């Protein structure tokens, strides 16, 4: 029933989930038993559930706060804040998402599509009334809902994001969205902006890889020049479908740097090999299409006379990220100290291909390597894999770091 649906959806917009049955029961009670007009009944039912869940109505108490005062979910608040950055929307129910900042801190915001509110503009400052606070896994956020009032401010809110609060990163360190980082990088490529709100976009790179960047038109930052290198402070990371990017926003500080940067399209990772995956060791491939055979069969060409190959699929892990890697024959031969022919002999003598796998595991599992190569979908195709050296310097640095804690 339409009235009831409206109530349920309005409630969920405000962060309250109630079953349709419960809503209907109460609505019916008012309308059928007590002959209350539908409009009145709607409002009454809405208020009833708001009160039940302890959510105060905006008309009664939405308090003006600073961002660092937001410590509870389900509160109605007013905020004066600047839009520091915007993210790609993670779902169709959300029409805009990003970060707001004032002089006491910053906080995520989400604008529900159903709220039918206008989009906020990056870099502008607003008075936002009747936001509702929320919490997920210890992180607070504010929701722009239907009852929110948005008023642009003439003055500029000073944001609290200071240069030294972002962490110094290399491209390879980017591991999630919403991270404030500093990056030294070269502008590898500039692309056609994909929308009006984007002034520039393209690729930034350093010795550990490349990453997409976006510069919003309203961030009012100078244009980057392809081929030049810069020190960026206060970039914010974003993620969309597994791909990371960095956003140049209003609080970003950009300095050109003369320091030469060797951009590598490769990813470089140092860590321990923690897993050797199925399909490693001596394998047979289809002579026509090179696919690995499964029980002598090619998925495309059926039963064929396979051609031998030696390769390893493994996972390298540094305690922060895990990367699948694919090691080709030459590199495997170097690692195990045997040519593929010698490996074949070994397998024939033992009447078992598994001995080769066991040798590979012995040489790789639990050991530390530096691995470099381009990343294709899920796998890093290894160009070079070297034993990671033990560093005395690291040892001294860590001891001082621990003592300084």
């Amino acid at each position, binding site marked *: 029933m339409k009235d009831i649906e409206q109530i349920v959806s309005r409630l969920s917009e405000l962060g309250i989930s109630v079953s349709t049955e419960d809503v209907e029961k109460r609505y019916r009670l008012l309308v059928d038993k007590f002959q209350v007009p539908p409009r009145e009944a709607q409002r009454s039912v809405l208020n009833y559930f708001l009160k039940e869940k302890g959510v105060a109505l905006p008309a009664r108490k939405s308090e003006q706060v600073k961002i660092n005062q937001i410590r509870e979910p389900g509160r109605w608040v007013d905020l004066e804040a600047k839009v520091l950055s915007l993210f790609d929307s993670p779902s169709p129910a959300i029409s805009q998402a990003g970060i707001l900042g004032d002089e006491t801190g910053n906080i995520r915001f989400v604008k529900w599509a159903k709220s039918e509110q206008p989009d906020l503009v990056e870099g502008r400052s607003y008075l936002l009334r009747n936001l509702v606070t929320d919490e997920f896994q*210890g992180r607070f956020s504010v929701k722009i809902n239907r009852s929110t009032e948005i008023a642009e401010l003439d003055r500029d809110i000073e944001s609290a994001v200071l240069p030294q609060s972002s962490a110094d990163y290399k491209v390879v360190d980017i591991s999630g969205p919403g991270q404030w980082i500093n990056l030294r990088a070269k502008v590898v490529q500039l692309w056609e902006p*994909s929308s009006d709100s984007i002034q520039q976009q393209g690729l930034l790179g350093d010795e550990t890889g490349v990453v997409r960047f976006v510069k919003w038109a309203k961030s009012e930052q100078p244009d980057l020049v392809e081929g030049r290198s810069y020190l960026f402070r206060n970039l914010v990371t974003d993620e969309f479908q597994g791909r990371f990017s960095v956003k140049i926003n209003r609080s970003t500080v950009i300095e050109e740097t003369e320091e030469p940067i060797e951009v590598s399209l490769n990813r470089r990772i140092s860590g*321990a090999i923690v897993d050797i995956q199925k399909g490693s060791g001596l394998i047979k491939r289809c002579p026509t299409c*090179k696919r690995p055979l499964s029980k002598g069969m090619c998925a495309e060409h059926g039963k064929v006379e396979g051609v031998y190959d030696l390769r390893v699929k493994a996972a390298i892990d540094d305690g922060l990220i895990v990367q699948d890697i*694919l090691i080709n024959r030459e590199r495997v031969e170097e690692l195990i100290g045997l040519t593929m022919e010698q490996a074949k002999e070994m397998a024939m003598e033992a009447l078992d291909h598994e001995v080769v796998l066991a040798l590979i595991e012995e040489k790789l599992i639990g050991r530390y390597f530096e691995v470099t190569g381009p990343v*294709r979908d899920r796998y890093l195709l290894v160009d070079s894999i070297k034993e990671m050296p*033990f*560093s005395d310097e690291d040892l001294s640095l*860590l001891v001082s770091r*621990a003592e300084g804690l």
Partner: protein
Amino acid sequence: MMYSREVARRVFLAELKRSDLSFREGDDSQYAPQYLLTPTGARCNRVFVVGTLIERDDIGEEVEYWRGRLADPTGSILIYAGQYQPEASRALAEIEIPSFVAVVGKPSVYETEDGRKITSIRAEAVQKVDLDTRNKWIIEAARRTLERLELMRSIDVPQSTDFRPGTIYHPEATTVEDCRKARGHYSTNISEYKQMVLTALSAIRKEQAIEESMPAEAHVMPEVHAETRTPGEVEMQDPPVRGKLPVDYEADSRAESLKPDAYTKPQPGRRRQTGSKRISSLVDLENDDIEEIDI
């Protein structure tokens, strides 16, 4: 959704052994991954540790069920491998005692009848390694632990939760919320864990000093470090092999094995981002002969 393997956390054994806070992430479905949260805020579905294997026994009845004790400079922990972990089991059975050993596995918290919680590792991989590898692990574990401790120290200062502290910490060794949760549960004393890190690091230095003063042939046997058993620890109770599995981290491996392997056929080269017009050969990886790669 893309399959993603859980990162193997680096935790010193003294810390791992006394971690008893385990929970499932997300919904309560049996496929949601299970985590163990340690006193310094490490969220572990999987761990990677390197230490000295100092004991091992077959405690199985009808089938083999191996139990080993692994020690690092800070403490020791039990490791199990049974019929469902055949390679780890074989390795545990065959490696000579004592040896430096690398273990990849899932932390497991077992609650005894009298309510005590015992944390151990259910091994996925067990591999003999050398002193050098073990030292590198100590360095790495120290680094990760310090990252977590530094973040924990910084959240003492009240500020907006979205505020990331400065360059002192590195990506995602832990998160603000995990630190808070760990502190709440364990009342973590940061100095105590700082000491633990220093103890571990000093073990490397000690050996280097010994190496310098002794003739080469003498360093065959790895040193056994620190406590091998907590004082007062009673005869341990082992998690049962059959029947009810101890609270553990199966979900990840089960979920992994359910996901279809999308890479048995070569994929056509993937399109780069929408809206971009110029893709020079610099980034056009699709030009490579993809038939060569069997992914």
